[in-house]
């Protein structure tokens, strides 16, 4: 009975109620969206590298090294000389080492020079290996393996020629040394998707005579050349046994010939979260405030509706409704509004995710999974509904006290 009344009353005031619900829905969608991006970003970052014990680069900050070597965010302060790289590679505790050389680009995508070992050793999402979807890994000097996003965005298929440019967003293209797409990798959800991978030697080859205008060494001559790399940007290192990781880290950090930095990827990530957590808290705080604002907005609409409904309330009371029925009616209306708001908000979130997922992925390399609401999200929704009920108590109690006298007194 009271439920039917509540619904009927809400439908009668469809426009105002609709607006209130929309406000709550948007605020809920915002709050949940911030949560999704926050957790999605963390998971996506944490999933990007696994199985690597140490990352070695020029001495800078551990977060910076992690960001440029693995996430291709920012740039290296310095490179590692090839000599140093060899020194580390020959350390008895080193199980495997993979060089990474950055600094060239193909269109908007970064080019990474490495060795074929990279495909074996690079692991993501707790131990998954890279899979070549189409074609094969680097064999010839001018072979390039491209990530799934590179292939999708530029419409490349195996054996298409590609041209590598010097520097990021630069106009100096090494168009005299065209590469060939030898393989396309399966989508990983990591920055590898947006990377063109070529051999270490190829990086040297494209720089053999790029500074001299008009001169070009034929590709076959280059294939014959020694082409020893001079420098690498960073190196991924696997250690023989976990007990030796710290020892090797210390050896590298105290290496006197060149200032180096070795980081544990997990520890650097943690440091990153510590930096980000302040902004994160602020974001969550702001979106929580938006939810509170929407709920207060709802309280205001209920208050103003009390004026319109003075007669209605008085008639209910005259018909024999107890004051607590009036309170119940108003609170129930608020709960219905808050619930609808929460559900619409959830729906908006999923619509937003469906639309935004590919955009966010291509713009930031962040893959936000579309999953059923987590327990935490369900709790958030329940809290919003409960808060809506509590907030509505204020106008409801006012109506409780005023309903009879107010509605019956004829005001002039």
């Amino acid at each position, binding site marked *: 009975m009271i439920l039917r009344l509540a619904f009927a009353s809400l439908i009668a005031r469809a426009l105002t109620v609709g607006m209130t619900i929309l406000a709550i829905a948007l605020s809920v969608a915002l709050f949940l969206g911030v949560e999704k991006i926050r957790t999605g970003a963390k998971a996506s970052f944490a999933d990007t590298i696994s199985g690597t014990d140490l990352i070695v680069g020029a001495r800078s900050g551990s977060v910076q090294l992690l960001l440029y070597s693995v996430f291709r965010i920012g740039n290296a302060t310095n490179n590692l000389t090839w000599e140093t790289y060899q020194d580390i590679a020959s350390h008895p505790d080193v199980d495997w080492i993979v060089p990474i050389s950055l600094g060239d680009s193909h269109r908007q995508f970064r080019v990474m020079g490495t060795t074929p070992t990279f495909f074996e050793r690079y692991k993501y999402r707790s131990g998954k290996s890279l899979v070549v979807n189409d074609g094969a890994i680097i064999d010839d000097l001018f072979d390039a393996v491209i990530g799934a996003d590179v292939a999708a965005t530029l419409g490349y298929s195996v054996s298409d020629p590609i041209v590598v440019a010097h520097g990021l967003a630069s106009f100096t293209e090494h168009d005299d040394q065209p590469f060939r797409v030898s393989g396309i990798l399966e989508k990983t959800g990591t920055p590898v998707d947006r990377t063109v991978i070529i051999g270490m030697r190829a990086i040297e080859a494209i720089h053999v005579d790029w500074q001299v205008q008009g001169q070009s060494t034929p590709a076959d001559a280059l294939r014959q050349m020694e082409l020893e790399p001079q420098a690498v940007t960073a190196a991924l290192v696997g250690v023989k046994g*976990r007990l030796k990781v*710290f020892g090797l880290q210390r050896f590298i950090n*105290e290496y006197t*010939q060149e200032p180096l930095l070795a980081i*544990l*990827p997990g520890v650097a990530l943690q440091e990153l979260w510590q930096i980000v957590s302040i902004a994160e808290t602020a974001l969550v705080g702001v979106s929580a405030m938006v939810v509170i604002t929407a709920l207060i907005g709802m309280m205001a609409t209920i208050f103003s509706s009390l004026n319109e409904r003075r007669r209605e309330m008085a008639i209910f009371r005259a018909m024999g409704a107890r004051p607590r029925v009036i309170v119940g009616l108003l609170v129930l209306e608020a709960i219905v509004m808050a619930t609808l708001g929460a559900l619409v908000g959830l729906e908006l979130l999923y619509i937003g995710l469906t639309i935004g997922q590919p955009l966010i992925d291509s713009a930031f390399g962040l893959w936000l999974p579309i999953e059923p609401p987590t327990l935490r999200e369900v709790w958030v929704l329940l809290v919003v509904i409960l808060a809506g009920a509590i907030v509505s108590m204020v106008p409801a109690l006012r109506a409780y006290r005023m309903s009879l006298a107010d509605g019956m007194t004829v005001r002039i």
Partner: protein
Amino acid sequence: MKILSFLVATAITVTPVLAEENRQLDAHEHGVGQLDMAFDGKQIAMELHAPGADIVGFEYEAESAPERAAVDAAVATLAGPLGLFVLPDAADCSVVQATAGLEREEEHKDDDHVDDEHADDNHAEAKHEDHANEAGHTEFHAEYLLTCADPTAINNINFSYFDSFPNALEVEVQVITAAGATSFEVERDAPTLDLRGMF
């Protein structure tokens, strides 16, 4: 033009000779120690670095008898890891190897001496010693190897370390397990390291 390029060329070849010496110093923060722990199978390797100020309260070379005694006592305490980092009984851990010592942190010098400089060598070295006494920091360094019947039972570690060394305020802990690497900060106010979810 020719001359200029000659000058550039000489500058490039000469500079490395002048800059033969490498200078670097590790970071050193009083009150903050570092503990690295690696779990592998039944073995746990630990490495502790703590500033002299944390452990004995001074960082100059121990001269008086009480100072020397303090250093000796500290080294002896540091050599007993299970008394400093209390592991749950269920893990049933024992010490395989424990070493502790005091290191004077000096500039890491790596001189590739050029012949001409040899004359000054002794002199320079002596000066360096003096300098280290004035401004150098000392660090206690300990390495442990433990073996545990059930390392997965180590869900927390109680840092009695803070009771033993009243000047220590914080330990930065890095942990490597099969699940990956993470870091923690253990502070005097809450001297327990929670390792749940690390195995």
